[in-house]
């Protein structure tokens, strides 16, 4: 990936200062970065590939495993400690309560939720709780495992298995996890890139707004940048990093700055809906909804509805089925408790929502229905045998 900074202004002294500053930032590895074209495919072939990949996800998702049953009979009374990054985050709260309910009703497994409240020390204390209460499995949700090396070692020494949940890459056990259960954030990133390429006819200029403090971000951002590099030789993609603490106040100016500094750079791709919302507010405030195409991930209820409003600027939102994700997490926990080989990739259902299909697909408040497929619930139920 090539790092580059926009061309500086005319003042030579200022230019030198700027160059020095840019160089310093580049040494630190933190700056607005640019993904240069390095594709081996022709523009036409890249466009066709991206469009085909995107279209495949406009249809309802399909079941792609697992297929090996597990037995729940001996799991009653087992304990699980579930360390959640922050239960104030709506989706994290939804996952934890849904998984807790599934484990309890399916197998009588007790799951204790530890709300780390974005505090690493509290998360680390969760490991102590697991040791003290005799838990057999610890789940770490949306937290980087690298922060818990000694705790994971202690857990393993006590015979406790560790599952990384929604860490980004399915099957990735880096950091000492015994199993993982996650959306395929790499695929999510690829689909955002496919939309960018397809919608711009292979000529787009865009900015990817990442958030390096979210564990799944590198996987998703990497998926986007690699896909653009591979399929779109004429596209231009820059990457900006805005961390969670600055979403509400930093994103509004960033979005509008992008529009002002380069009006042709009309594609803005924040990773998550929560990142997109403050930017969409500034777009609406300045009446710039027709100047930008914003695409993000989550398709959360409050935000995906904005696809129906052209003034909002939101044109694309990928949804991951959170109930499906919760079933996958519960399934993996039970497999680990059973001593079975963990599932590498649950292929949790994704679907793309765009301004063109939002009115048809986003109907009602039951998010499960937006995906057009709830058959996974019966599939999992069939796998969970007494």
């Amino acid at each position, binding site marked *: 990936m090539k790092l580059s*900074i*926009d061309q*500086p*202004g*005319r*003042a030579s002294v*200022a230019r030198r200062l*700027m160059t020095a500053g*840019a160089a310093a*930032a580049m040494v630190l590895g*933190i*700056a*607005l970065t640019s993904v240069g074209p390095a594709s081996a495919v022709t523009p036409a072939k890249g466009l066709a590939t991206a469009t085909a990949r995107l279209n495949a996800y406009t249809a309802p998702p399909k079941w792609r495993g697992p297929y090996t049953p597990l037995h729940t009979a001996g799991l009653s009374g087992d304990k699980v400690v579930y360390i959640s990054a922050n*239960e*104030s*985050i*709506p989706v994290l*709260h939804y996952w934890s309560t849904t998984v807790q309910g599934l484990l309890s009703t399916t197998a009588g497994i007790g799951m204790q939720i530890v709300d780390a409240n974005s505090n690493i020390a509290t998360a680390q204390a969760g490991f102590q709780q697991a040791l003290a209460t005799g838990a057999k499995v610890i789940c770490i949700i949306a937290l980087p495992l690298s922060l818990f090396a000694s705790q994971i070692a202690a857990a393993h020494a006590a015979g406790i298995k560790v599952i990384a949940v929604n860490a980004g890459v399915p099957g990735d056990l880096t950091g000492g996890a015994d199993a993982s259960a996650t959306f395929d954030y790499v695929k999510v990133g690829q689909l955002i890139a496919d939309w960018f390429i397809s919608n711009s006819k292979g000529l787009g200029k865009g900015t990817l*707004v990442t958030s390096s403090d979210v564990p799944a971000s590198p996987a998703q951002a990497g998926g986007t940048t690699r896909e653009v590099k591979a399929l779109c030789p004429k596209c231009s993609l*820059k990457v*900006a*990093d*805005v*961390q969670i*603490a*600055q*979403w*509400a*106040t*930093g994103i*509004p*100016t*960033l979005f*509008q*700055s*992008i*529009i*002002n*500094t*380069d009006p042709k750079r009309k594609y803005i791709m924040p990773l998550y*809906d*929560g990142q997109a*919302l*403050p930017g*969409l*507010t*500034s777009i*609406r*405030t*300045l*009446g710039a909804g027709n100047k930008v195409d914003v695409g993000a991930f989550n398709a*959360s*209820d*409050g*935000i995906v*509805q*904005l696809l129906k*409003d052209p003034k*909002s600027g939101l044109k694309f939102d990928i949804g991951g089925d959170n109930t499906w994700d919760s079933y996958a997490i519960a399934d993996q926990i039970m497999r680990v408790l059973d001593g079975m080989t963990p599932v590498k990739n649950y292929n949790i259902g994704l679907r793309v929502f765009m301004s063109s299909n939002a009115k048809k697909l986003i109907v009602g408040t039951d998010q499960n229905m937006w995906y057009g497929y709830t058959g996974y619930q019966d599939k999992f139920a069939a796998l969970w045998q007494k």
Partner: protein
Amino acid sequence: MTFGGPNTQESLAPLDEFSSAGRSRGSIRDYLQRYGVIIAWIAIAVFFSAMRSQTFPRLSTLQLIFGTQSVILITAMGLVFSLAVGEYDLSTGSLVGLGSTLLAVFSGRHHWPVVLAILVTLGICFLVGTVNALLSVYLGVQSIIITLGTGTLIAGLTLAVSGSVVVTGVPMGFTNFLTTQFIGLALPFWIGLILTAVTWFILQHMPLGRRMIFVQENREVARLAGLRVNRIRAGGLIATSTIAGLAGIMLAGLSQAADPQSGASFLLPAFAAAFLGSTAIVPGRFNAVGTFAAVYFLVTGITGLDYLGYAGWPGQVFYGGSLVVAVSLSHLAGRRLA
């Protein structure tokens, strides 16, 4: 100059008489101190214009700077009222989140008329301010501790009220109303500007403003002089909470939705602007015009960094660094006063 009690006559001498500026009026040092933030604001605008001569010095940049951060302006202006009486309200950010969420819940989920939703939201924020005031002023616990507690409590209640999800459904008519452009800028900026003018008038041209300064300077002496010190302190805290609620209403109205977690992000920028503002115009005093200039100095800095391609951490460095510098300068200005 005499300070009168609530029922006594007062002379309306210029506020400068209470400031260092009043004692060294006319010197270059005085002007540099009074207009330092504005000079710095112009300087960074010139710097970024030089660095990005094709894009920064444009009308669209002005619209960006003045049009997108009105919530911070309104929050900071509300904060000035409590700071001006020597109280620290750390619940401000949470109240922005609460105001935002309540408006969305009332008007979006329960389909109340927007005007009613706004009034009830402001009323609830007023009540929170009253609780802050009762606990800190009348019970005697430091406001910084009380508001840290109530702020955390409100943040939790906001999540509970929202169901921990983004709340949508703020009527489009209200959003369209707020985004109506007047001289190229949406309504919240003008509301912030009017609030600035009102704050300026109260603090610098009304007896109440003098009393607030006196209370901040020395509560005991103010009490002996016949001022209703507790009432003035309580009023400052209630005004801060209510105005934070107003900022939240603007936030939800512009977004057409409310993120229950968004409020906390406004705390540091608002404090940074208020403290930075206290080093300007009337050095050593929290004041409206200084705060207005400080908000847009900070926004200009962030915007310029964005234009240069330094989004993200440089913004935090800029805000945090500005706050450190501002508090230090404010402290120095205070020592000059003493």
